[in-house]
C-alpha cells in the first residue's frame, strides 16, 4: 500500500498564549481525493489548514508527506509549499500585485521558473479558472468573486499536487459557487488532490468523497461522505446538522442520490404517484 500524500498523526498545537487549538488530531489525505474538513465556526479549521503547508508547526505529533516526516528548514518548506498549495479564505490577504497577471506570476517566479515558463503557467492557471480575460486588470477593481478566483489561480499557477482551500465558497453567490465548483472539478479530473475546510454540510455532501468531522481541535471521524454525514449524533456533537439532501434521500428507498437535481426529480415522481 502506498503512503498517503499527507498524513497528520496525533497532532497537538498550542498557540503562543497556551490555548490548545489542535489536540490529538489524525487526518490522512490520499492522492486524488476530494476531502472536506467539516467543522463549525471557531472549531480551528484554519489552524489545521495552516499545518498542511508548514505555516504552523505542531507542538506534538507528526506530519508525513509521502510517508516521509516533514522538516521545517527553508529548503524543505519551499518544496513542501510547491507540492501543497494553500488558498486563504480572504483573497485580500493573498493578493498584492497591481495587476492580475502579475499577481499570479508571483508563485511561479518564486519557484525559479524563467519568465517564459512563468508566463505559460500563469496563462494556464487563469484559463483553468476562466479568468484569462482579467489578466491585465487592476487587482483592486475586481469583484469579490473575481478576487477569490485570482487568489486560487495564484496557487494553481505553482501546479501543486494538493490544493487546500479555506472556506472556498464563503461570500460567493450561488452562481459563483457553481462556477467555482465546476473549475475545481476540472482540476480534480486532471489529477489534483483537493482539501477544503468548510462549515457547509450541504457543500461537503454534494462535493466531497470523504469528510473529516472536526470539532474542538480534533477530527472526530474521517470517512466516506455518505457514511460520516449520516451519523446524526456525531454531527450534533460537532455542532453541525446532517445535510437536507441526505435526509431526503434517506426517505427514498432508492440508493442514495447526491445530486440535487436527481433527487428532486425522484421526489417529484414519487409525490405525483402517491397523489
Amino acid at each position, binding site marked *: 500500500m502506498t503512503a498517503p500524500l499527507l498524513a497528520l498523526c496525533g497532532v497537538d498545537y498550542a498557540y503562543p498564549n497556551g490555548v490548545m487549538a489542535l489536540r490529538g488530531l489524525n487526518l490522512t489525505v490520499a492522492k486524488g481525493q476530494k476531502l472536506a474538513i467539516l467543522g463549525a465556526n471557531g472549531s480551528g479549521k484554519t489552524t489545521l489548514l495552516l499545518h498542511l503547508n508548514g505555516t504552523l508547526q505542531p507542538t506534538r505529533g507528526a506530519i508525513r508527506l509521502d510517508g516521509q516526516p516533514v522538516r521545517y528548514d527553508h529548503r524543505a518548506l519551499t518544496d513542501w509549499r510547491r507540492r501543497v*498549495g494553500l488558498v486563504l479564505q480572504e483573497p485580500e490577504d493573498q493578493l498584492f500585485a497591481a495587476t492580475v*497577471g502579475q499577481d499570479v506570476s508571483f508563485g511561479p*517566479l518564486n519557484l525559479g521558473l524563467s519568465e517564459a515558463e512563468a*508566463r505559460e503557467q500563469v496563462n494556464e492557471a487563469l484559463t483553468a479558472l476562466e479568468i484569462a480575460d482579467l489578466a491585465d486588470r487592476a487587482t483592486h477593481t475586481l469583484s469579490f468573486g473575481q478576487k477569490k478566483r485570482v487568489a486560487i489561480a495564484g*496557487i494553481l499557477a*505553482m501546479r501543486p499536487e494538493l490544493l487546500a482551500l479555506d472556506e472556498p465558497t464563503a461570500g460567493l453567490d450561488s452562481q459563483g459557487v457553481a462556477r467555482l465548483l465546476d473549475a475545481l472539478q476540472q482540476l480534480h479530473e486532471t489529477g489534483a488532490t483537493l482539501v477544503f475546510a468548510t462549515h457547509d454540510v450541504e457543500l461537503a455532501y454534494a462535493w466531497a468523497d470523504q469528510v473529516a468531522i472536526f470539532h474542538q481541535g480534533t477530527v472526530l471521524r474521517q470517512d466516506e461522505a455518505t457514511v460520516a454525514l449520516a451519523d446524526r449524533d456525531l454531527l450534533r456533537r460537532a455542532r453541525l446538522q446532517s445535510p437536507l439532501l441526505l435526509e431526503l434521500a434517506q426517505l427514498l428507498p432508492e440508493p442514495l442520490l447526491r445530486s440535487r437535481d436527481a433527487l428532486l426529480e425522484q421526489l417529484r415522481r414519487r409525490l405525483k404517484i402517491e397523489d
Partner: protein
Amino acid sequence: MQAIDHYAWTNRWRNRHPLEKLLPALTLLLLTLVLPPLRIGPLALAGTTLATVGGAGIPLKTVLGVLAAPAAFLLAGIPFLAISLSFNDGFSLHFSPDGLQLALETSVRALAAVGCLSFLTLTTPMADLIPLVRRAGVPAGIIELILLIYRLIFVFAERALTGRQAQAARLGYSRFDRGLRSTGLLAGNLFQRALARARRLEIGLAARGYAGDLKVLQLEWPLSWPRLALAMTLVGLTGLASGWI
C-alpha cells in the same frame, strides 16, 4: 483618487508603452519650469489637456476636476504674493504690480506643471511606470514598498469608507464631538487591522514561496518609436512656439 485610478487603467492610451507618455510629459514639465511662464504655461496647459481629452479620451470634466484642487490653492496664494507687508514706517500694506506679475507667473507655471503631471497620472497606471523606475536604478526594496503601498491604499480606503458608513449608521457622526470620537476610534481600528492584515499577508505570501523578494512578471507594451518621436516633436514645437508669441 478613485477616478484618476479608474481612468489610468481604462483610457485609450492605456496600452501604449509608458515611455511614450512619460518622456514627453517630463520634457514638457522641464520646459514649463525653465521658459517664461506666461508664454509656455498656457500652451503647455492647452497641449496636455488636448492630449488627455482628445488623445486618451478622458472626459474634460475629470481633467478639470483634477486641476481644480491645485488651482484653488494657487488662487488662494495670489493675494499673499501680490500684496506686500512693510514695517518701515509703522505698518503698511502695499499692492505692488511687480508682486502681481510674480503671482501670476508663479500660478501659471505651477498650473502648467500640474497639467503635465496630471496627464501622466490620468493616462498611466502606477504599475506601468514601475519597470521604468526599476531600470532607472531605484533599489528593489523601495519598488516593493511602492507596490505594496499602492495595493494597500485601496484596501484601506475601502475599509475606512465602510467603517465610516457603519459608524454613521449608528449615529457616530450626529454631533461634532461624536464625530471626532468616531474618527479616532476608526483610525485606531484601521491601525490594528493593518497589523493583523500584514501578518495574514505574510502567511499568504509564504504559501506562494515568498523568499524575501516580491518578483512578478513585468508588463510589456511594444514601444513605438514613431509615436514617441511625434510626441517629442510636438513638445519641442510647443517650446519653440512659446518663443514666437
